[in-house]
């Protein structure tokens, strides 16, 4: 076990290393992420394994029983998402041992997030951990690591002001919609897909007066359920293109592998309403809306990176709090490291 502890690792490709165009190629479907986790765990040289897969990060946490597993993990990830080794190597990081603990704690507390201090990531980490545990891919070390990371995240948030003044994507979208339309009571919103970020953005818009929300999803039942919760209507995914001209704000968050909205579709809709602007919010990864759409007159396209950079504009004000949180997390990481070492030494005796 002592040797195994020396082989704690995390391979990650996140918004720090990879731009949006690369991240959308790295992205895994939930099924592929689960398959990768199982595949790695089935190997003799990997004792424990957990894959965190969100819109801004693909990370493989693990405990190896052999020292040189990095190349193996990288090859498996490339085979799973279909990218080349060169691309992965250029846009990823590899941490081991104590650095893994510090990294996991910073991810859970939102310090490593694109929108620093956001709280959604904690839920995503908890889900990834629950799934991996249910699949019996985790063991003593990763269980301890993730449970402690959730506690550390909580204490960093309560003891510092990292979440204070934090702006959500929904709030940024509302501010942008106000800069485009003025008041929102006459604006019609189309939600394509039922992603979490899109749902929250739609809720923010609704709270600021948007009365007409329509949901289009691959599964009509999902669309109907979300539309019901938002007080709107549901349409078939195949119908949304024909009705595009009716909407002012389009929020897209599907897991579709290709583009759903291209330049021609938007240009056609725009011709039928040339004096009304289009506000397109693409929070999907891979992206749903062709970036070339932004070259059209009276169309305003914002993707995840754009919204996050706007949300982080007040980051300077929180720099001191972020440094304090990092110090707190370092203490927690060091304590856990000592605990794990002590346990392994006692187990060895």
């Amino acid at each position, binding site marked *: 076990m002592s040797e195994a502890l020396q082989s704690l690792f995390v391979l990650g490709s996140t918004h720090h290393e990879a731009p949006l165009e690369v991240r959308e190629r790295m992205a895994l479907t939930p099924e592929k992420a689960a398959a990768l986790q199982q595949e790695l765990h089935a190997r003799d040289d990997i004792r424990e394994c957990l894959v965190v897969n969100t819109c801004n990060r693909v990370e493989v946490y693990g405990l190896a029983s052999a020292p040189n597993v990095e190349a193996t993990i990288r090859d498996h990830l490339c085979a799973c998402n279909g990218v080349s080794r060169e691309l992965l190597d250029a846009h990823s990081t590899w941490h081991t041992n104590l650095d893994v603990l510090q990294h996991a704690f910073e991810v859970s507390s939102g310090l490593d997030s694109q929108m620093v201090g956001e709280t959604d990531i904690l839920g995503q980490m908890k889900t990834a951990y629950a799934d991996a545990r249910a699949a019996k891919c985790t063991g003593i070390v990763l269980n301890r690591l993730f449970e402690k990371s959730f506690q550390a995240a909580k204490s960093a948030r309560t003891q510092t002001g990292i979440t204070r003044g934090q702006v959500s994507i929904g709030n940024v979208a509302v*501010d*942008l919609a*106000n*800069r*485009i*339309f*003025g008041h929102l009571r006459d604006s019609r919103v189309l939600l394509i897909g039922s992603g979490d970020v899109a749902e929250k953005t739609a809720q923010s818009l609704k709270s600021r007066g948007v009365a007409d929300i329509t949901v289009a999803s691959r599964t009509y039942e999902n669309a109907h359920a979300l539309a019901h919760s938002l007080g709107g209507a549901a349409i078939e995914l195949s119908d949304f293109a024909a009705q595009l001209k009716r909407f002012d704000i389009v929020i897209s968050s599907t897991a579709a592998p290709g583009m759903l909205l291209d330049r021609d579709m938007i240009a056609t809709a725009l011709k039928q309403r*040339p*004096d*009304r*602007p289009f506000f397109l919010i693409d929070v999907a990864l891979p992206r749903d809306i062709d970036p070339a759409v*932004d070259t059209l*007159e*009276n169309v*305003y396209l*914002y993707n995840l990176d*754009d919204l996050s*950079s*706007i949300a982080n*504009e007040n980051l300077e004000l929180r720099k001191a709090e972020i440094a304090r949180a990092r110090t707190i997390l370092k203490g927690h990481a060091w304590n856990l490291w000592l605990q794990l070492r002590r346990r392994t030494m006692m187990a060895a005796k």
Partner: protein
Amino acid sequence: MLEEIALTAREAIAIGTSIYLSAFLFGVLMIVLRKPYPRAAMFALLTGGFIFQTLGLNLRGAEIKGCPLGNIFEISQFIAWSLVLLYFIIGPAFRLRLLGLFTAGLAGLLCSTALLVRAWDTPYPAGIFGGNPWIELHAALAMFSYAMFAIVALVSVMFLIQQHGLKKKQFKGVYQYLPSVQQLDLMAKRLLITGVLVLSAALIFGAVFWVNHPERVPVFKLSATCLVWAGYLTVVVLRIQKKLVTRRHAIACIGLFLFALASLWPVQSASDTARTDEPSDHQASE
């Protein structure tokens, strides 16, 4: 009562101009320093500038015994005055953020340029409109429509700035204070239609005078005015048909206003020449 005031018309106008420029610089400073936009202070400063400018124009009107629209200096002052008056009507009603700042800037620029270029304030005989109230109404309405086109140009500039910010994903600074692109676009459309209606009315009154005294209206002045009117009418028609919208509409409005402004000087020169060519007729009307 006006005789008792210890200020000349130019002095009063100069004070008004200084207040407009101070308002503009104060507004810019607040934005640069990222302080809350001083809407009330801006309104108060514009009111102060407007009072002094009104006083100056009244003093000038008393001197020339008529509407002070006889030279480029007075025309510029009248356009700036009408522009600020329009701001007082439109600003509070539609709550267009930063319109006060842009109005103060343009009014300050027009007034200060007119004050600095001495040649624009050429003397002319009193009663140039020959005591004809219709032609005075024509001139006043025409200048008021130009003020409307000035505010349309300002709103268009604000639209282009806001659109640039949205396209370039800029969030801070002036962008956060500007009204929405849709509000600005709609406002420009409404003001443009009103401006064209006012200019059309001015041209109808002018046409009555022209029919009776064709020799008193220079062909160049008539052509330039009709060209400006036709240009604005074309933009309005295309806007209503939704063929000229948003960015291109804003650029057309700014371009047309610059053309209208630039045409004032040759038009006025042509009028001056026409006046000097017919001194006997003009003197007779005094």
